[in-house]
């Protein structure tokens, strides 16, 4: 029994927190049937690890150690609370699942009960909760972020986020949202809600709505970890494969999206040699698999579009007809103004700026795109290429009013300066 150095133990606990938090919490919820108590017990287990692992060494399976510690603590809490509390479990569960009396030695990922995290994430993303509550609960319960961290990620104050999380947890308990893996019949719809949350986390992190940095790294990494976890839990699901592929292929370009001084670089300007080839290879394999499902899922098609870019050696070689064809399928299966906008941009590259502009003009009346800065930005780009400078300026000026992201603002302001007829 050699004493482990404190720094090594702290690093091991931090690593376990990152990898195993959701597993430990999800298993503990089945004992406590109360999210708050389970969170406390899981937190206590991680705190206990900091001292225990110094004396006894870091266990071979940290997740199993932490789960056992958290569940043991949960049983103690339940005993202290007396029987009456157990008659009123806050969360409803399947009858077939072992209750509080079950064995304490369930292992982490891949062990006897791999579904626990799936139960937890479908509960966090239950359709009876609004999207902001789903996102907040997912970050808090699945990723183990503190309320302060969740608040920071969504640029709201900590009391606001705390109130949002408390309300959501109360609704789960009082309205009795079940802690259960949905039936095969309901599963696709429920998984779709989960994927929507993971995708929103990624896009929020990928281009933050405001602030100085283009990418909020932590949200991107957490969303990819969640997608990987879902892939392990639902290996046959083509929508899950498609989403993971989309995130990997988009994130592969991360390092090249801004240039010196944090300037925004368009796909056209990015140094493709610096794209993450490992992520692209993994993403492309997943796309191939996801596209075998008929009809293809929305995420598989979006990932296929990202894959075309990822596998093309240079901007000039881009097969825009292929990309337009993929957008055509996507528009047919999932019509949305945002997809139509992206398709119009691809049309502009496949068939020329005039045709792209015509495709965009059909979208200007879309209420969903009012206030969406990418529409005037795309118009500005086509007008600029057509030499219609005054109109291009107007479009870029409109786009500038619609984004709070500092990097995007600088890009648009730069375009305006270039087009200035009378530079001072």
């Amino acid at each position, binding site marked *: 029994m050699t004493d482990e150095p404190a720094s090594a133990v702290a690093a091991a606990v931090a690593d376990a927190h990152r990898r195993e938090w959701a597993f430990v919490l999800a298993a503990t919820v089945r004992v406590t049937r109360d999210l708050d108590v389970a969170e406390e017990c899981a937190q206590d287990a991680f705190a206990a690890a900091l001292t225990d692992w110094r004396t006894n060494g870091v266990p071979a399976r940290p997740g199993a150690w932490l789960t056992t510690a958290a569940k043991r603590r949960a049983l103690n809490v339940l005993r202290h609370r007396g029987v009456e509390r157990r008659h009123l479990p806050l969360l409803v569960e399947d009858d077939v699942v072992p209750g509080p009396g079950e064995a304490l030695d369930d292992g982490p990922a891949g062990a006897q009960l791999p579904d626990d995290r799936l139960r937890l994430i479908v509960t966090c993303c239950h359709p009876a909760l609004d999207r902001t509550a789903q996102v907040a609960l997912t970050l808090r319960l699945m990723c183990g972020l503190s309320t302060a961290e969740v608040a920071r990620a969504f640029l709201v104050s900590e009391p606001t986020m705390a109130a949002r999380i408390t309300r959501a947890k109360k609704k789960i308990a009082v*309205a009795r949202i079940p802690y259960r893996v949905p039936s095969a019949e309901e599963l696709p719809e429920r998984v779709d809600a989960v994927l929507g949350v993971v995708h929103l986390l990624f896009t929020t992190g990928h281009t933050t709505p405001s602030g100085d940095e283009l990418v909020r790294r932590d949200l991107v990494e957490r969303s990819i970890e969640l997608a990987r976890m879902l892939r392990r839990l639902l290996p046959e699901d083509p929508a899950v494969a498609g989403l993971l592929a989309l995130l990997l292929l988009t994130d592969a370009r991360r390092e090249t999206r801004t240039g010196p001084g944090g300037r925004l670089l368009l796909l056209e300007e990015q140094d493709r040699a610096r794209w993450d080839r490992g992520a692209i290879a993994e993403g492309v394999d997943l796309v191939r698999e996801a596209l075998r499902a008929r009809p293809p899922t929305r995420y598989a098609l979006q990932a296929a579009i990202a894959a075309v870019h990822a596998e093309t050696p240079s901007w000039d070689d881009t097969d825009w007809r292929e990309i337009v064809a993929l957008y055509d399928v996507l528009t047919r299966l999932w019509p949305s103004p945002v997809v139509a906008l992206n398709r119009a941009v691809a049309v502009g590259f496949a068939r020329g700026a005039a045709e792209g502009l015509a495709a965009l003009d059909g979208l200007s009346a879309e209420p969903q795109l009012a206030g969406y800065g990418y529409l005037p930005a795309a118009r500005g780009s086509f007008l600029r290429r057509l030499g219609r400078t005054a109109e291009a300026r107007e479009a870029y000026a409109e786009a500038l009013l619609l984004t709070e992201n500092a990097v995007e603002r600088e890009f648009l302001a730069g375009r305006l300066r270039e087009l200035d007829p009378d530079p001072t």
Partner: protein
Amino acid sequence: MTQYMILIYEDEASYENASPELLGEVMQAHNDFSAQVEQHGAKIVGGEALQPTGTATSLRAGSDVTDGPFVETKEALGGFYVIDAPDLDTALAVAKLCPARFGGVEVRPVMTFD
């Protein structure tokens, strides 16, 4: 089991102008609904249809009696069911079947006092 109230909100004007055939259809839909609830693992323990809001009288704390509903809305509370269900998913599955062709329904857990 938890009790949930399914509150039915509908556009009253649609019923004022409804033909006897349509009213018969709505009645039949409610009968069919009642017959299906148990197949979903829930049970109806109560429910009523209400007279239109034109017959309502409201009393607000500290003010006079007024003629009309407490809140004026296009879709007004027109009736309710109280069901026993094991969880919200079951209650929502039942609520999805509840007839409300001129509006929709709201599901609320009933408070319990120990």
